[in-house]
């Protein structure tokens, strides 16, 4: 081996010297390492490698004409490692000096060929690149695991939540917990089932963003019109439930209902849009039952709510005002309360 080849092997361990016929006259140590069972010297380069870009290079003369251009090569046999290459006229001969690099195929290549530090030139950034690939994938793994754990924790938290995320009101689960507690200590309370009227139209006409703002505003009004010890819950899209703890009288609950109806009727302005809704209310008193049960209370409040809607929007109906068997419903006009 000449001193020049020695130097080239150190600086470009993946180079090859070709003669004018495209026959490999010398192969750098790392290039040769890729096919340990096949002596590269003496073989035609185009027999071993296919030029994938530029296309149509299938003879030594074609290769010679590509001097100075970036070439893309690929091993013809497996593993079909891809390379980037550039060739220049061989300074000491008539052939070509071609230098190869792995390019992006490096991550597979180091695995396929069990390459080590010694296989790369000291100035080659491959080692740094591989370091980064490993360090980044270790960091990504840790991030992914953290994300999975956080997602699990969020799912559990949502499952256990007693608050409605949109309005900050109590949700159905929280409502049932409160009602059980009230019933367990023989508390007296009124259950008001409130459905928004015309909310669907607001959603359709002004979009969900405005719809969400309306729901938040409704929640706020309901809190303002009740006391701290009362419960305001959102139990469905536009369905709310109020639990009035130890109401002073039927009239007091009627007044709450009347104020709600009147305040929710006021137009709400959001940016340039104005929404107009109203609400229908059906109520029951726990004191109307010997042993109040949550399911029964909801059922009767629903019946009252249904009657209220049938009587026209913006009404408040008490279950005890309804005649048995649901005939000849008497509905009090809320404006007269």
């Amino acid at each position, binding site marked *: 081996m000449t001193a020049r080849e020695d130097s080239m092997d150190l600086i470009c361990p993946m180079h090859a010297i070709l003669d004018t016929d495209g026959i490999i006259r010398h192969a750098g140590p790392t290039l040769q390492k890729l096919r340990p069972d096949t002596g590269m010297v003496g073989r035609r380069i185009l027999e071993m490698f296919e030029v994938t870009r530029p296309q149509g290079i299938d003879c030594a003369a074609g290769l010679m004409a590509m001097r100075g251009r970036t070439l893309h090569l690929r091993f013809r046999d497996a593993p079909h490692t891809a390379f980037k290459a550039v060739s220049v006229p061989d300074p000491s001969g008539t052939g070509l000096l071609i230098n190869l690099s792995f390019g992006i195929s490096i*991550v597979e290549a*180091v695995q396929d060929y*069990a*390459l*080590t530090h010694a296989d790369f030139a000291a100035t080659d950034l491959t*080692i740094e690149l591989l*370091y*980064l690939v490993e360090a980044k994938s270790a*960091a990504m793994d840790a991030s992914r695991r953290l994300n999975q754990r956080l997602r699990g924790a969020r799912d559990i938290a949502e499952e256990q939540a007693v608050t409605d995320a949109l309005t900050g009101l109590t949700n159905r689960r929280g409502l049932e917990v409160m009602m059980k507690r009230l019933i367990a200590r023989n508390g007296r309370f009124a259950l008001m089932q409130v459905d928004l009227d015309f909310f669907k139209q607001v959603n359709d006409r002004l979009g969900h963003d405005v719809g969400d703002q309306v729901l938040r505003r409704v929640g706020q009004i309901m809190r303002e019109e009740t006391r701290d010890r009362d419960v305001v819950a959102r139990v469905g899209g536009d369905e709310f439930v109020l639990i009035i703890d130890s109401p002073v009288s039927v009239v007091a609950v009627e007044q709450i209902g009347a104020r709600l109806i009147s305040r929710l009727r006021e137009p709400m302005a959001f940016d340039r849009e104005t929404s107009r809704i109203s609400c229908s209310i059906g109520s029951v008193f726990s004191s109307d039952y010997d042993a109040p049960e949550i399911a029964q209370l909801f059922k009767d409040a629903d019946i009252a709510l249904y009657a209220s809607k049938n009587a026209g929007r913006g009404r408040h109906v008490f279950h005890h005002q309804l005649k048995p068997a649901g005939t000849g419903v008497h509905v009090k006009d809320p404006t007269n309360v």
Partner: protein
Amino acid sequence: MHGLINKGIERFVIDTYGQTTWLEVAGQARLGFTEFEAMLTYEPCLTDRMLATIAERLRRPREAVLEDFGTFLVASPSLPAIRRLMRFGGVTYQDFLHSLDELSDRVRLAMDDLILPQLTLIEQGQGQFRLRCKPGLEGFGHVMVGVLRAMADDYGALAVLDHHGYGEQGEEIAIAIVQDPFSEGKTFELGVRCA
């Protein structure tokens, strides 16, 4: 303190002394939880309390605990990534020592919020070196003694290491390579197939 460091200490205690010991440490150090997250950041006082509790429970000086932790980082099969990343530093143990100057930059390239003290290797000839750790992470020098010892083993080099205490410029470690290499060491290939 970066969660990765805390998580490493947690892993070290669990793998070396068992889950029960770790849960006791977490309780006694009033961490408020039993598992660190590698990708979050924690108050430095948590790490201090945790290390003090470990040292107290194991009846070992804090420095010795940190050194064992350093060895664990490299030698433990449960954290193969660290040993591999260190081995990217060079072909021989000497190459590796020279790569330590870049360690904090390399680490920051991979995780920009993990700041390690700058290391400087000073060559003194005949296999004698001094490694200076800039201040900022007290006890980092002791961890590095453990790391350097385990890496010498990995490279098959025989090195004598000595922590020279804390000075104005930080901590200093004396390194003497007695023989390099005295045995084959472990192999290191740049690419490993993931299982």
